[in-house]
């Protein structure tokens, strides 16, 4: 899954985050929707951190 490092996780997280918001709005499954949203936010955060680290890394 190394191809997803950075941008890939960010995009996947973003999609899950959006889906979670939709589940919350469309149904009564607030816990499930909130969990999907939270998972998306975590993946988005991981991707953003990976991108930041890559941008600030000193090439050897």
């Amino acid at each position, binding site marked *: *899954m190394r*191809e*997803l*490092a*950075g*941008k*890939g996780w*960010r*995009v996947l997280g*973003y*999609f899950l*985050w*959006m*889906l*979670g*918001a*939709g*589940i*919350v*709005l*469309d*149904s009564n499954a*607030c816990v499930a929707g*909130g969990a999907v*949203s939270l998972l998306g*936010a975590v993946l*988005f955060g991981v991707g953003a951190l990976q991108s930041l680290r890559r941008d600030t890394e000193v090439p050897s």
Partner: protein
Amino acid sequence: MSRSLFALFNLLLIFGAAFGGMALYLRSNPDVSGVRGSRLLSSTVRGWYYTNLDPFEALFVRWKITPDLITMAQIAGSVVCATAYAFGLIYTAGFLLLASGTLDILDGRLARRNGVASKAGAFFDSVVDRYCEFAVFLGMIVYFESGWPVWAVIFSLFGGSMVSYTRARAEGLGQACDIGFLQRPERFVILGFGSIFSSILTHTVGGRHELLMIVILLLAVFTNLTALQRFFYVRRALASKADEQGAHA
């Protein structure tokens, strides 16, 4: 109400992240000269979206996932999307529409990347696109049940099919025809985001998805105008070709 506020707050974050990503992309001075844009979806916006798909393309290449498999996933996504529309889960349906539109972009890009792009693949993709579009609009008809929105959905479906048909027929006659205000990606984006915003509006302010009805009405008008735009363009181009051939003879 708190549920709506949660979704609204989430959505603000989602749009904030999207605009942030777009701003970062623009800061890198991207070269989008090879990306074809339109009035509604510029080459910069398309270029940004395609860049976001790069990691998945690379992953699918390593996993040996074929473009046809992605097209199958698009069919499944469209059927679930249609079911979501039929059951009134408008936000989820809009999201799934955007996701299946993304799969539609991915299969073509994956085929080109793998060097397996073929006429047979393009034909399969085009036919699947029509069926997926039909499924989605059928779901909307089931949701609206009766009244003018049903007619607007029918005219949108017909307009969308005519946009594709005019291009296919023109290309069959040897005339390129990739012009038009509302092509397929534009229709996906308008309907997808229209559904999402309509759902938020309905859950926060109230109503019966009036925004979605307006979006479908606009689609009904502009898809048919696009088909007419293509009709006149191709007719003029073919007539001038015939005149040129007559002059040379």
